[in-house]
């Protein structure tokens, strides 16, 4: 799931203070599941903005509306009335949301309330860890189902660096060494001989380094 964190409040203030009619648009999918940008958080942010603006004598209105997913046109269509009335839209979705709004409402000013950070796994309630960087060509079949691209600080492909200490990554004792994890996992599976094979240079042409990627499906189209 995509995770995103709310920007610093002052930054949001600077982006929005000029607006008389501000619309905060929540997104009730990924950012709601990661508890930062769903309906509840959008309302809290709006409430904070109203309090702050009142404090500073800025009038106008701060409304909220939440859609199920800001990355879909139909959902964005459903809030057209509110968007049209606003002179600035503040999105609490991952950055796809505000860009979707821009695409859908070309004449509206839209700003993001969030910093999109990663695709995470929910380790426990309130804790997410990055497990995938969307490199475009998955190799975890060779690494015991653990991604060294996302989870090794140096994206090493063939075993740990010299900094691996007691199973921990040299960047921080809080971070497990991905290669230690790969080794332990393969040992448990009785597949340590997988490590004898050298992974060649990674194909990076499917990653995002070559401009925006597009996915198209074949099949029925209306």
């Amino acid at each position, binding site marked *: 799931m995509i995770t995103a964190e709310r920007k610093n*409040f*002052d930054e949001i203030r600077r982006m929005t203070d000029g607006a008389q009619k501000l619309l905060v648009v929540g997104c*009730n*999918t990924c950012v*709601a*599941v990661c*508890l930062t940008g*769903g*309906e*509840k*958080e959008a*309302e*809290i942010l*709006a*409430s*904070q*903005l*109203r*309090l*702050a*603006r*009142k*404090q*500073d004598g800025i*009038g106008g*209105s*701060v*409304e909220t509306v*939440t859609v*199920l997913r800001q990355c879909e046109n139909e959902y964005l269509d459903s809030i057209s009335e509110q968007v049209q*009335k606003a002179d600035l839209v503040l999105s609490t979705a991952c950055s796809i949301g505000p860009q979707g709004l821009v695409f859908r409402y070309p004449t509206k000013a839209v700003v993001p309330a969030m910093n999109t950070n990663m695709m995470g796994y929910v380790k426990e*309630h309130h804790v997410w860890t990055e497990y995938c960087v969307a490199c475009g060509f998955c190799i975890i079949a060779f690494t015991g189902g653990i991604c060294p691209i996302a989870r090794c600080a140096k994206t090493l492909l063939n075993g740990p660096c010299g900094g691996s200490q007691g199973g921990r990554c040299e960047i921080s004792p809080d971070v497990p060494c991905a290669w230690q994890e790969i080794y332990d996992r393969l040992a448990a599976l009785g597949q340590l001989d997988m490590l004898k094979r050298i992974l060649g240079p990674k194909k990076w042409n499917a990653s995002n380094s070559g401009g925006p990627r597009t996915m198209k499906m074949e099949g029925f189209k209306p």
Partner: protein
Amino acid sequence: MERELTGAITRSFGRPGPVDAMLRPPCEVACPIHTNAQRYIQLVAEGHDARALAVVRVTNPLPQVIGRICPHPCEEACRRGDVDEPIAICNIKRVASDGARAAGLGFEPPKIEFTTGKKVAIIGSGPSGLGAAHDLALMGVRATIFEKQPEPGGFLRTGILNYRLPKDILDEDIEYIRKMGVEIYTNADVGRAVKFNDIMAEFDAVLIAAGLSESRPLPIPGADLPQVLLAVPFLEAVNAGREVPGLGKEIIVIGGGNVAIDVARSARRVTGGKVTMVCLEADHEMPAHAWEIEDARAEGIEIVCSQGPNAIMGEGKVEGLQVKKCESVFDEHGRFSPTFCETELSVVPGDTVIVSIGQMSNLSFLPEEGPAVNERGILIFDREQCTTTRRGVFASGEVVTGPGAAVNALASGKKAAIAVARYLGVDVNFRPEPAAIGEVPADVADKVKKAPRRRMPARDAGERLKDFGEVETGLDEVDGRCEASRCLLCGSGARYSQLKCIACLTCVRVCPYGAPWADGEGLGGIDPDKCQACGICFTQCPAKAIDLTVMSEEDIAARTVAAIADSGNGELEFGCWYSQSRVAPEAAAVSLPCTGRLSVRLLLHAFESGAKKVYVAVCSEDDDGHFVHGHRQTRAAVADAQKALGEAGLDPASIELRIEPELKCRKAT
């Protein structure tokens, strides 16, 4: 539609799922008149006695009476019993009416417009007749009651003594019904003072609610002696303050039911002498309520069990009661069919016998053309339609249902009122019988904080025997509120909207009682049997798919706005109704079932609504208050809201968490 800067929370929540909508707390289901006990209990917990009384009155036309003498089947069903002891539902009803009475509120009936133009005669002014008249009035039908006694109330007046039900209390409840426009003719003995057929001619319908006005006699040798009395006339005389001829100093009461207990307790008061009850049943089989038996014993009444009356001894004057051993009272099908050992005889000494083995109706006032009675002299009656064999004549109460509690007679009268109204072509709302939610699962019951039931204070046995003054004195305000706070608010906790849920699993993870569930396909729900209404899931659900049935977000927001408007100084306290103390007495208060249900949004909303300072109460340093993790949630919400305020340029210290100074809820009992 532009939202103001104050951003009031007005959005209404998703409808409860079909299951939630149907299931009611078992107290309400078990109550013969389906009183919304939960609601009035909640209002008493909050200290709103008059509003609580109004809730009682919705279904109960005799709130003060029933609040004193009801055998409270609701308490047997109460789910708090799965945790420790049931809620004292009946005593709380009395707290509501006593409190409202003291405040001079809640005794002015609504103004009734008798728009239907229909008139109904009711024979008998006991609970059934009064209940029917009251409900008919609410439906715009004018009722006139014919009562043969000089004062109304039926068995409530003639059969129940002042020490259990003070007469002024009964008078007040009846006066309320009178003020609704119900006419009561007393000394109006149908059959003598007024003929049944004349009533038929005058009214659009007749309801027979004549009760069981005669004592069942005991056909044994010696029963004709002058010192052998019957329960009903005895109670009538004592109740009217009349001297009872033939009453000696050593009284034997035959019978083991509630009426027999009343007879014994009054005889003890009137004579000051020895009183012995003799009954067929073994101790644990006695039909009287356990608490009545306990009270009688406390007053020095001896109870001789498993003995059947054989003969009353004495020549021209009672000298005792010969009894034979009763071997069993019921047959294998549980039917009344006593067997005796005819040779095991003994004598209970005494100079007076009062027979209290049951009551029967007196239907001698019915004319030949009906309604008809069966071969056993009982009115022929359709239980569902409340009809008799004569068109336009209905019946209700003990005359057709047989003996029971006043609240059952009331229920029967209310049912008849609907039948009569329908017969008269009045539009009546149909209310389906409610179904109850399930038991509290054992693992959840384990986690619920235990709290002792508040005992009803009573005058000391030696003291109370000296007069007919009321024995039970009523729970005081603190005990009443504490007792009310024990209610689990069954079935009124988290309400979940499947339409809004995004299956994020937050509720599943945060609920301390394991009530929310989800399957791998993203389907889920909240189990009402497990939910304790703590509100934690509501504060955490990111999609706002959860609200609480009692004290919803909208409700709390509205109370917040009202309290701030009231406060004068912009200071507001969110308190916990379980503790019933205040952390900021100078602030206006919104009291909640645990401050753990305060969300960040609600805290910010208070400031948007004009609050300058908000105090949030918790009742201890612990994580848990009344609810598991309740305080942990309160603290988290306060910290988050403080941070949010700080970011917005307001002083974070304008939200302050305070620990309750004085925990009335923990007051020793």
